[in-house]
């Protein structure tokens, strides 16, 4: 078949690392082509070269047989390449149509543009009203804005970077329908993901990258997810294991926890109730931005709660700050590593002090014992295999996965009685993610109670005993994960709580 895009021997090196090494690949018109690989495998660099954001050191690209060397995204767009990024670049305070107009070279009048947006959204099954304010949209709807922005330029190749990480299963289905329709019309799609089941459901072909090199190609429908994962990682994967523990007494209980929103586009928490028992892991799913950060802050003590809503081992802790809660045994690890869980400019020793001061005895009468803190940091580095030259290095100099291991390790090693983590394996490679999950399972087995807030449903199904979903600041009633279907999960995430009755 004649190829739409062909890459030959693309190479791109950064100081100290070869991001892409002789990468070649072909995409035919209408083909849905998956680009698979762990974080740091070179997927982003490759698509940035195609989209004109990065210039290759060597190698060549062709579109329809003609040489293609975009010097900037505008040139790539003119050649028919569109890209939907993982992180949206939208203005919350503007409407959908205004946002789209901002990204266009010669924006038509808003009324005409709105009409075209409606046409595109009808044609491709992407429901979206042009006059809505972006700040009010869900993550899935925001992604549609980005997709429509691309489709208005009638691309022949659409690049999608991890598009489903922010979607509910139902929204994923809608997206896949759209992509299949585009593919049937002849638009090629380069689909970046590390979610293997999705790729098996959607893609025609897959190219697998590891450490900048193409290590394999396959037809996803005919390959098992496990085989693809092992090609990605380059070794045999171990699945986290746990021995079933009978849940013990209630450790943490939330009774109709309600908090007003602390920021303009934040969410209030609405009457969240749950009981967390010793030895269990409660998974909390939900699309990003439905109250996850707020719930973590309310539990960690960054936001105080009114009396009577929050109890730890029977004691009302609503009015306590983070450190008194740590002393009582309630520890937390927020989602954002840089700037929230850790201070990027400070050393690992100082970051160990950040949350470890009280429980690890790093402080006496207000005076800090830096030697002890360094010892604690070195313990974390050893126990969690954090790759760094030493504890004196700045947290910001670590790779995302290594810093995440440090941040989780810091809390786990403090022997928490209740641990709350948000997105514990976000942006972490497969083997580090497995290690973090295993640490959480071991912790629960050792008698702690754990809440894992995550957008990765596979992760929650793998480690959680019970599952609940956050939707607009409300929490669905927790259900045992065993026997829960994707459809039920989707409904819980979408806020249809009526299903619970049938299931109990």
């Amino acid at each position, binding site marked *: 078949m004649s190829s739409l895009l062909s890459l030959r021997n693309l190479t791109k090196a950064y100081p100290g690392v070869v991001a892409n090494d002789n990468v070649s690949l072909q995409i035919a018109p209408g083909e849905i082509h998956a680009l698979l690989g762990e974080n740091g495998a070179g997927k982003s660099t490759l698509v940035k070269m195609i989209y004109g*954001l*990065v*210039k290759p050191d060597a190698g060549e690209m062709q579109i329809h047989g003609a040489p293609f060397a975009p*010097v*900037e995204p505008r040139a790539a767009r003119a050649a028919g390449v569109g890209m939907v990024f993982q992180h949206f670049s939208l203005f919350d305070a503007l409407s959908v149509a205004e946002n789209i107009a901002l990204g266009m070279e010669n924006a038509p009048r808003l009324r005409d543009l709105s009409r075209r947006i409606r046409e595109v959204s009808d044609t491709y099954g992407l429901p979206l009203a042009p006059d809505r304010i972006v700040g009010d949209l869900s993550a899935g709807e925001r992604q549609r804005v980005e997709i429509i922005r691309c489709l208005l330029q009638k691309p022949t190749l659409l690049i999608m970077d991890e598009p489903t990480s922010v979607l509910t299963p139902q929204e994923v289905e809608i997206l896949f329908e759209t992509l299949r329709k585009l593919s049937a019309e002849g638009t090629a799609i380069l689909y970046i993901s590390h979610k293997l089941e999705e790729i098996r459901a959607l893609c025609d072909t897959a190219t697998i990258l590891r450490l900048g090199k193409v290590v394999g190609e396959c037809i996803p429908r005919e390959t098992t997810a496990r085989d693809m994962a092992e090609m990605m990682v380059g070794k045999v994967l171990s699945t986290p294991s746990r021995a079933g523990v009978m849940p013990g007494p209630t450790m943490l209980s939330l009774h109709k926890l309600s908090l007003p929103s602390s920021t303009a586009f934040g969410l209030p928490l609405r009457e969240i109730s749950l009981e967390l028992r010793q030895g269990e892991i409660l998974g909390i799913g939900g699309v990003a931005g439905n109250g996850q950060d707020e719930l973590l802050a309310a539990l*960690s*003590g*960054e936001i105080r709660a009114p009396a009577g809503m929050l109890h730890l081992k029977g004691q009302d802790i609503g009015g306590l*700050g*983070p*450190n008194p809660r*740590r002393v009582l045994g309630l520890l*937390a690890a*927020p989602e*954002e590593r*840089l*700037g*929230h*869980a*850790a*201070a*990027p*400019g*400070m050393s690992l020793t*100082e970051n160990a*002090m*950040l*949350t470890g*001061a009280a429980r690890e005895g790093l*402080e006496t009468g*207000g*005076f*800090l014992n*830096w030697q002890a803190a360094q010892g604690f940091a070195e313990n974390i580095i050893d126990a969690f295999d954090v790759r760094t030259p030493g504890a004196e*290095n*700045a947290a*910001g*100099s670590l790779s995302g996965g290594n810093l995440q291991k440090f941040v989780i390790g810091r809390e786990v090693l403090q022997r928490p009685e209740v641990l709350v983590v948000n997105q514990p394996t976000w942006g972490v490679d497969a083997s580090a993610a497995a290690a973090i999950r295993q640490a959480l399972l071991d912790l629960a087995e050792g008698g702690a109670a754990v809440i894992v807030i995550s957008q990765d449903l596979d992760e929650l199904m793998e480690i959680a005993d019970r599952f609940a979903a956050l939707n607009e600041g409300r929490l669905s009633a927790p259900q045992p994960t065993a026997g829960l279907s994707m459809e039920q999960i989707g409904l819980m995430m979408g806020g249809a709580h009526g299903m619970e009755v049938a299931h109990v």
Partner: protein
Amino acid sequence: MIRLEKRPQSSRAFAYLTPLFAVLATFFFGGLLFAALGKDPIQSILTIFWEPLFGEFAFFYRPQLLIKGAPLVLIAIGLSLGFKAGIWNIGAEGQYIMGAFFGAGLGLAFYPAESRLIFPGMVLAGALGGWIWAMIPAVLKVRFGTNEILVSLMLVYVAEQFLASMSLGLLKNPEGFGFPGSRNLQQYDSAHNAELITGTGMHWGVVAAFIAVIFAYVLLSRHRLGFAVRVTGEAPRAARFAGVNPSRLVLFCLGTSGVLAGLAGLFEVSGPAGQVSIDFNVGYGFTAIIVAFLGRLHPIGIVMAGLLMALTYIGGDIAQSQLGLPAAAIQVFQGMLLFFLLALDLFTNYRLRIGRAETA
């Protein structure tokens, strides 16, 4: 094509070297400025930096170094705590004035009684005056989220008007033949902040500055409060997560800098200046901002920066009288120092690449 590239880790060497480069750049461009004014640049620079230390009248100028350096260091130490945490007290000048007014006011209230308790009382009153003036922006920020930069700066002008009104009114020397200004505290033994060792310039303000430096050093390196200050400056959300209460930190940082600025004002008015007058303040509160940054917000660095700025003050005065350089030129010269320091600071986190651009 010249490009800036972010360093993976900020350069420690550069953090220590920038003050030196900034001083050298200031020498060069300051020299150009003096040349443009028709003065010999080399001689001007030498007059400012060499004359006070090793010149013919160095015995007179050297004690001045301590007298002028002490208030700068004392104020800058307080400011550096807030600056490290991202709390910007720009109004130390006002807190300095209020400290001087409160302290001198207490002393003058007891005139002509003699008691050993009067001076310690004035010290406390001076600290209180600076603290109160700093608490205004602090409380407004904590309660209503106002911007402490604006409020503290505006309060400087309020304090200046207040000072003028006091030296013409309430505190005016009844035996002063109608001249504005209070009684001279140098002639009132119980209230006089005299030299501790004659001829050295060493007075209680210098002692206080040294204590403040040690206090700040221990606080920042060993104490949880100093750690809270540093984490807040690095990553406010991480500080909150670590249990730092941002409001309390604002009160602490502004309060401490107010107390130290107030003390500096009191030691100045009761010692080297002697009286409350309309033009009692000479801008120590503003210059201390330069000192704090020039010293990298580090206690030891601030001592060195304070002495350097004191040198430019003294040398500037000599240059004015001997070479006829305008006072404004000296101020531009001092301003250049901060300007170059901030500009060169960029290289702590970025490195310069000269070559072809990679992406358009």
